[in-house]
């Protein structure tokens, strides 16, 4: 690594620290510095600048990784209890690190201006954001299973800390998250200890050795522990219940950050452990007895269900934030599905979707936060008609939802197209149909989002709202702009995912600036977007040049059923936006997983109560007798039956 850097860069003498060391050190200094600075108003701006610098460092690291360097090492390493702990950043970790720092950059920028000043304890939020970034960088650059687990726990708890900042319901939601995350972490813990048991080590190579040495049953246990443990973080069904409330209740800017990248840490770990280290062939050969399925296809179905069900739950939400977070869960399913297809197209599509999702989801969340900032609510039944009041926020939200729904010309379409195509080429029509169905549900859902907030009737009390300040509008517009540019020129994003894909291994996807050229159907977004814009221009010509002059009426000038409507009458069609659909699919929402969750809670409660009721000091002699007798029987029979 250092050799290559020497050849390529002029600061060859400065070789004391690798780029990764610089990154980690800067992140650590920033986090601790922000805790000390506390309420200082420039803390946010400082953090933003530092994130910008970190992005620059990452860009240099990216150049190095792109030139064929396998990974960037860290000088930091420990030897504890006979285990070596090391950190190094490879292409996969770099890709996620880039998104992490990028999301932190925009979230921090957004939080530094007017929005941050209205927040209670914004200094703490900035500090916790920096802590999250540090924890994620540690996770993403982990060099063995033990440092992976340590990073995993740090990320979980850092996220927990930032989730609690909302107070009230946020604390309850964060608590629920914490229990899920803890259970997942314990599963991962058990899994890595299983690996260590077989090979005596905790390096990444040991995992590969372990899998070839283990019996099928053991590999299954390992697979389930890893998939469930990491799956909790990316809210794979059925471990998804925590995510929407926890992310929704987090204060706006931090929430945009969490939404954009936090759940992706689970995806990173799944890719690392299951795809890169275990290998999809090994998963594919892990057959489920008496079925045609394997571990790989089972996980693909889980991903597909995660894609469809949360999307249709999102459709039924009445709060903008909840709607978006539920979609976030669903979008995670697309990414995992793409990666699991395993072809170069699928992997690239899944990874690109991670990138795209981060751009539009962050933009969407920042836009919704701007609405909350001005109108005071994100309840979809209490807004409407804000398009004239907050046009730039509207533009952001519009671009964001086009991306989320996966329509041209935004980047969300490209990655989804790649995933669809890989499913088709991979011979998975049913999964493809599920992906299509989820996209259709998304279109319905996001239209409701934009309609209920920005279209329709403007409320009297919102008549004099102003557009959000520049400090809020600019970051979100830039994010949406990135979404458009990488939709117009997906090659830019694919260059980035290439670095990650090379680290995962397998074939690379040949691509050009406009998309990919395949034997079975190509996509060139330069043409698609270019023609679309041109055609809309033609539509504009037809509209403006032909026909009579139009005249604009005021937003309040309206009628219905032959009567003029005044602004005092609330006629915004917002509640139960899809009644026909609700009548059909409404009864399908059984809430079985919610009830299963409640059931487990009740079980623990009853067991605890029962125990407390039965286990009293007065009865102890009885127990003593019982245990002695049972113990004598036990030991006796042990002696007789070896």
């Amino acid at each position, binding site marked *: 690594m250092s050799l290559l850097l020497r050849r390529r860069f002029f600061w060859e003498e400065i070789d004391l620290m690798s780029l990764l060391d610089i990154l980690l050190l800067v992140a650590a200094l920033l986090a601790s510095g922000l805790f000390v600075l506390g309420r200082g108003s420039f803390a946010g701006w400082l953090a933003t600048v530092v994130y910008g610098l970190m992005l620059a460092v990452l860009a240099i690291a990216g150049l190095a990784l792109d030139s064929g360097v396998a990974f960037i090492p860290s000088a930091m390493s420990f030897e504890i*209890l006979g285990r070596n702990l090391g950190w190094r950043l490879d292409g996969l970790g770099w890709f996620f690190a880039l998104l992490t720092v990028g999301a932190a950059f925009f979230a921090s920028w957004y939080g530094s201006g007017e929005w941050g000043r209205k927040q209670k304890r914004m200094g703490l939020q900035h500090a916790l954001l920096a802590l999250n970034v540090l924890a994620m960088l540690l996770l993403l650059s982990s060099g063995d299973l033990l440092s992976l687990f340590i990073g995993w726990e740090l990320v979980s708890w850092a996220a927990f800390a930032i989730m609690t900042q909302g107070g009230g319901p946020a604390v309850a939601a964060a608590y629920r998250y*914490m229990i899920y995350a803890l259970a997942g972490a314990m599963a991962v813990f058990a899994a890595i200890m299983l690996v260590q048991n077989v090979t005596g080590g905790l390096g990444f190579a040991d995992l590969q050795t372990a899998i070839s040495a283990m019996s099928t049953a053991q590999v299954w246990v390992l697979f389930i522990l890893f998939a469930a443990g990491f799956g909790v973080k990316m809210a794979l069904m059925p471990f998804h219940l925590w995510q929407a409330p926890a992310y929704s209740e987090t204060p706006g800017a931090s929430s945009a950050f969490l939404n954009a990248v936090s759940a992706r840490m689970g995806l990173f770990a799944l890719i690392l452990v299951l795809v890169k280290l275990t290998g999809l062939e090994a998963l594919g050969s892990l057959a489920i007895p008496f079925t045609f399925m394997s571990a790989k296809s089972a996980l693909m179905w889980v991903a597909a269900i995660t894609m469809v069900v949360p999307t249709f739950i999102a459709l039924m939400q009445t709060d903008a934030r909840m709607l978006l977070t539920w979609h976030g869960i669903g979008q995670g399913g697309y990414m995992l599905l793409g990666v699991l297809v395993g072809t170069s197209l699928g992997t690239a599509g899944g990874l690109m979707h991670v990138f795209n999702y981060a751009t539009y989801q962050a933009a969407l969340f920042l836009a919704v936060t701007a609405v909350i900032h001005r109108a005071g609510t994100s309840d979809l039944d209490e807004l409407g008609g804000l398009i004239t009041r907050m046009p730039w926020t509207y533009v952001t939200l519009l671009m964001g939802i086009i991306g989320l729904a996966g329509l041209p010309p935004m980047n969300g379409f490209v990655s989804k197209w790649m995933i669809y195509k890989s499913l088709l080429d991979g011979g998975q029509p049913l999964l493809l149909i599920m992906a299509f169905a989820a996209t259709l549900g998304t279109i319905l859902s996001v239209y409701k989002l934009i309609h209920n907030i920005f279209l329709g009737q403007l409320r009297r009390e919102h008549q004099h709202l102003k557009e959000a300040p520049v400090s809020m509008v600019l970051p979100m517009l830039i994010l949406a702009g990135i979404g458009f540019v990488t939709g117009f020129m997906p090659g830019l994003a694919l260059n980035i995912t290439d670095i990650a894909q090379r680290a995962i291994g397998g074939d690379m996807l040949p691509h050009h600036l406009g998309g990919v050229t395949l034997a079975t159907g190509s996509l060139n977004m330069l043409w698609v977007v270019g023609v679309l814009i041109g055609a809309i221009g033609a539509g504009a010509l037809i509209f403006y040049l032909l026909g009579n002059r139009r005249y604009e009426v005021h937003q309040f000038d309206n009628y219905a059923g032959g009567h003029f409507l005044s602004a005092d009458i609330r006629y915004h069609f917002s509640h139960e936006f899809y009644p026909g659909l609700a009548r059909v699919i409404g009864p399908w929402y059984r809430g079985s997983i919610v009830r299963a969750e409640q059931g487990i809670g009740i079980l623990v409660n009853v067991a605890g109560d029962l125990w407390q009721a039965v286990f009293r000091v007065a009865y102890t002699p009885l127990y*003593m007798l019982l245990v002695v007798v049972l113990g004598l029987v036990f030991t006796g029979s042990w002696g007789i039956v070896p």
Partner: protein
Amino acid sequence: MNTVPQIIFPVAIPLIAAFLLPIAGRCHAGFGRIFGRAAVLVTFLASALLAWQVAGAGPASSAMGGFKAPLGIVFYADNLAMAFVLLLNIGVWLFWPSGDEDRSGPYTLLLTLLGGGAGLVLSGDLFNIFVFYEIVAVASYGLAASGGSAAGFGASLRYLLLSALGSSLALMGIALVYAAAGTLNLADLALLAPDVLRGPPGAAAFLLLLIGFGVKAELFPVNSWVPEIYASAPVRVTSLLAGIVSKLALIVILRFLVLVFPMPSAYGLLLTLGILGVLAGELAAYRARDLNSTFAWSSIAQLGVIAIAFSIPGPAGIAAGIALALHHAVVKPAFFFIADKWRGDVKLLSGGARTSPLVAALFVLLSLSIIGIPPLPGFWAKYLLLDAAFSSSPAYWLAAAVVLAGAVVEGAYLFRAAGFFYGGPQKGRGAALFMPGELVPAFVLGAVLLVAMFAIAPLGAYITSMAVQAADVPAIAAQILLGGN
């Protein structure tokens, strides 16, 4: 191998001081208090010196009066024993009553506990162990009741009855052993055990000993006194009993297991009781509605985890158990100090983070460590446990699964309380403010925890060597027998 007569000091000095203290107290009230502290300090220095010697020159032993091992009273000190003797000393020093009460009773009892506890881990003889165990028991009854409340008296009376019942069972076990082997010296027993103590009679003896000593070790199911005592005894006593004395009893059980009863049924028995203890403790703690009983129940669970660790054959399990025990000895007393300030419903914690931010932060730190979150020491202790468990038979895999599931429940109830600290009503009166000054021992322990985090590597190496030493049966037996010469 060496014989060291001063091995008696950690036991003798506090016991003698305990006799003298009432007399000193009679001369002058204040003098008694200072005398007691001075005695602890002297004991500590003597123990530290001994520990230094043991660490340098290897395990030491000594026979009282020069009588040879099978007949005489033998003491045996290795790194493990000395570590816990030192821990006990530090604990007694740290949890020495801070009030300026003039009664010499508690001081005497504390010194007795100190001497008895040291004797418990240093004895190389089954009967002496029993005697010291009784000394510790008597001291703890008195200490538990020293709060002066009616509830405290009632609780310690029930504790006494239970403990006496346990002791009689233990005595029965000792009788069984003696009947089978004709000796009570641990070294002799270690040599004779393969012939005479294998099979059901030996297992029955171990069971009786386990139940008997298990009362102090908070072992399932003879730990039902725990919530009551911990709720009513003064916090310093609670900390001492939960944090340290319980571990001494477990160390004794470990010695029995390693030296005398290293057979599958014995290991299986301890494992079963450990698993049940974890389940019972965590579930009951989840339903507890005040901090104090939460920690009492969770203490049961923690000791169950340690029992599971000790039930894993080989040094790896012992190392894990020692690490867990040391960690628990640091964390649990600190917890009890915090709980002492917020007696009553857990909801009273509401807003505690605003009035006492440091305490809330300490609470979170301790919680994270005891759940086992890296890179805090609790994680490494759990790591050792899982490492040992997964390299043993599948029964231990089940135990590991129970421990991990228990950690989730633990996180649930600890962070429910933390939620009250940090959440709670945003307006109005928060939980009562109190001076961090009253919590000095808790903060000291928290600091120890943080320091330990940066010293995991040397600590781990030290604990592992300790465990290897404690598992080396022939060497121990030889050393104890040598002590007679």
